[in-house]
């Protein structure tokens, strides 16, 4: 098992290198200059030159790339061209906030999605099933922007129950987490439902029922655990999606996470920060995938990693 984990971690290195190289080239292919993005139309040619020199952007691309990789190996992500703060500090200040929001959204999504999916599967085509699947359809279709603003208007302006923007207390987390988690809740509900429906028709479930096992135990122990494998996959991947999909939610709720940071950085052509955020998200994604694979083994003892 541990050999497998180490092997998988080693395999992630080429993936990460690929991701970083891709982004390195992408941001440089965009037209636009960091210096002009900093000083706007007021930037003088001397200033533009100075910024290019300071950040090594006057070097040929291969030289820039080798310098970048060399620093990366020493754990140095460089300096933000916009704020002139070390990229590590910028990421470190923001990533925990994004993680907090994504995890809260995942909890919201799981708490709504899994029970809704189970009940729908147990009573397929019932009123509840039809209704919850309709709601789920809305859930995946609603634009995050619109949902966020509506929730703010209702719960912050009209009712005054919850804060509209910013971060701090648990109350601040509620609206962004619900906004971000809604689409995932809908997806998880649909996934749980179809997976449960499939499992419930299998022979061993019939056997369990025939043995006289109470229905509750049949569903929650026998069926659910097996139905969970695709659901866990979705949960794991959803966390990745939530982390990177937090961009819009963070913008609407003025949530100080990496999503907003990357948007601001792209607009400001802040290459080092964009590279840093992508590297961080790619690493998180790869690690999440590994965890998901390991959870399979726990859910289904037939799966072995050698």
């Amino acid at each position, binding site marked *: 098992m541990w050999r497998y984990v180490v092997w998988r971690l080693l395999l992630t290195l080429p993936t990460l290198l690929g991701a970083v190289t891709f982004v390195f080239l992408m941001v440089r292919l*965009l*037209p*636009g*200059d960091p*210096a*002009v*993005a*900093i*000083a*706007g*139309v*007021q*930037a*003088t*040619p*001397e*200033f533009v030159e*100075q*910024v290019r020199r*300071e950040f090594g952007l006057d070097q040929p691309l291969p030289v820039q790339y080798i310098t970048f990789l060399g620093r990366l190996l020493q754990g140095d992500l460089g300096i933000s061209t*916009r*704020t*002139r*703060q070390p990229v590590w500090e*910028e990421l470190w*200040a*923001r990533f925990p*906030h994004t993680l907090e929001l994504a995890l809260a959204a995942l909890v919201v999504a799981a708490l709504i999605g899994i029970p809704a999916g189970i009940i729908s599967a147990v009573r397929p085509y019932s009123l509840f099933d039809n209704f919850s699947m309709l709601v789920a359809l809305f859930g995946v279709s609603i634009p995050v922007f619109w949902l*966020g*603003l509506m929730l*703010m*208007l209702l719960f*912050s*302006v009209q009712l*005054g129950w919850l*804060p*509209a*923007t*910013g*971060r701090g207390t648990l109350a601040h987390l509620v609206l962004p987490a619900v906004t971000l988690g809604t689409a995932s809740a809908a997806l998880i509900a649909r996934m749980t439902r179809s997976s449960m429906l499939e499992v419930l028709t299998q022979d061993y479930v019939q056997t369990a029922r025939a043995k006289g096992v109470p229905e509750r135990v049949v569903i929650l122990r026998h069926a659910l655990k097996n139905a969970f494998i695709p659901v866990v996959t979705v949960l794991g991947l959803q966390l990745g999606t939530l982390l990177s999909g937090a961009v819009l939610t963070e*913008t*609407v*709720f*003025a949530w*100080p*996470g990496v999503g*907003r*940071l990357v948007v*601001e950085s792209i*607009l*400001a*052509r802040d290459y080092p920060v964009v590279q840093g955020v992508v590297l961080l998200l790619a690493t998180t994604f790869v690690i999440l995938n590994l965890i998901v694979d390991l959870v399979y083994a726990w859910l289904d003892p037939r799966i072995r990693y050698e």
Partner: protein
Amino acid sequence: MRRLSRVVGLTLVVVGLGILGALEAQEPKRGGRVVLGMGVEPENLDTIRMASAPAAMVSEHITQTLFTVDLQGNIVPELVESYEVSEDGRVWTLRLRRGITFHDGTPFNAEAVKFNLDRFLDPESKAPFRFLIARITDVEVLDEYTVRLTTDQPFAPMLAHLSHSFIGMLSPTAVQELGSGIETNPVGTGHFKMKTWTRGESILLERNPDYWEAGLPYLDEVMFRFIPEDAARVVALEAGEVHAIMRVPPADIPRLEADPDIEVLKVPSVRTIYIGFNNQKAPFTDVRVRRALNYCVDKEALVEFVLEGVGRVSDAPFSPGIFGYSPMTPYEYDPERAKELLAEAGYPDGFKVNLYHPTGRYLMDAAIAEAVQAQLKECGVEAELITLEWATYLATLRKPPEEAVHDMYLLGWGCVTNDADYCLYPLFHSGEWPPVGWHLSYYKNEEVDRLLDEARVTPDPERRAALYKRVIEIIWNDAPWLFLYSEVQVNAVRKGVQGLIHHPREYILATEAWLEQP
């Protein structure tokens, strides 16, 4: 007669009492915290490295400048007490206010001014706005409170440029001790001191108890909160999470105006929005064509219906309230006249051009471009709209004339120095064509060049104003631009906050603000 004087006297007393009563009701209260909601976080707060209005807004609370601009557009001394300029306009002697200290206790004196100006002027300083005072060749300390600035040639906009937020005075001790730390911990002489900066969230300032203007400031704390989304900023104001916001979207104005707890303010801005023609490329090499397009577009309608009243039709290449402004008569909306002129110029059936415009950079910019497109079509001119993301947009347009891709382009210019030199020189002087500057219309008129050069070195304000008047007349008749409008900032404030200053430089100051219920 005597009776009359008694009546007058009595009236004066009554009026006087009235004013006193009003003053008493308006007596500022001490304490509390004001929260201002802004869209963009400052990039950093080391004055010489700043480059944006949001950074200037925060910095103005912490760091002060030698001169400043009041709300009427006058340049008045701030950290300077008095000044004089030599006959030839090359030597400026500044006498500083005494008894001022920086937040860290370092005295504010001639040495400190020299330190800051030298730092700003150092070619290695990385100051994006170094060009503002780049004419200064020497900064000399005459005595503890007198500094002498020498320029290589007379430079008339000097005082206006010294009023720029980016030439704020920082404590020399702090700059030396903190190194790059000064970027997040500025130490100035201003009303408030830096307390905490939570990246991505907010900046919190606290009262400077040793502030040099007696009685000020009233507030204990000022907080700046960063809420990027326009609609969310409005919601935050309605929910009472912030006291004041900037850039209210036009669609939200009626709702906020209907709210008894909120006041909406329309503040003139120094930013002028225009559509430039490529003056070096047919058909815009012909002045009749340029004039025709000015007649073809209904500016009043753009302001009224697209901007919902949030704008002012241009009557000069820059806004009122700036030194050197003199109004012309706007080209009236007259499509028939436009068609005649086009026919005269040899385009009876119009022509096809492109029109580059940004989306989301200025208020309703894309909608304005679409409206202009529709109006030009009435005159037979087909304008193809091309929009690009902002940084790409600037990089695409900023090309020398022979490489230019644009026929027409929509752009804004914030004349932040409050001096006509900065409004006109970079945009109309032919020495400023890319790659040197941002003169993207490639307009060339030797008389304009000469007058702009002369106005730059003429110390006498009256004579300068006359020169600019002439320049504006020529530009207006040559019509190198399709003149549109200047922006009006829409800010909204919750009731209960007094004394906020809504500045044309696109910021709100809480330096003299107070809360009715702290």
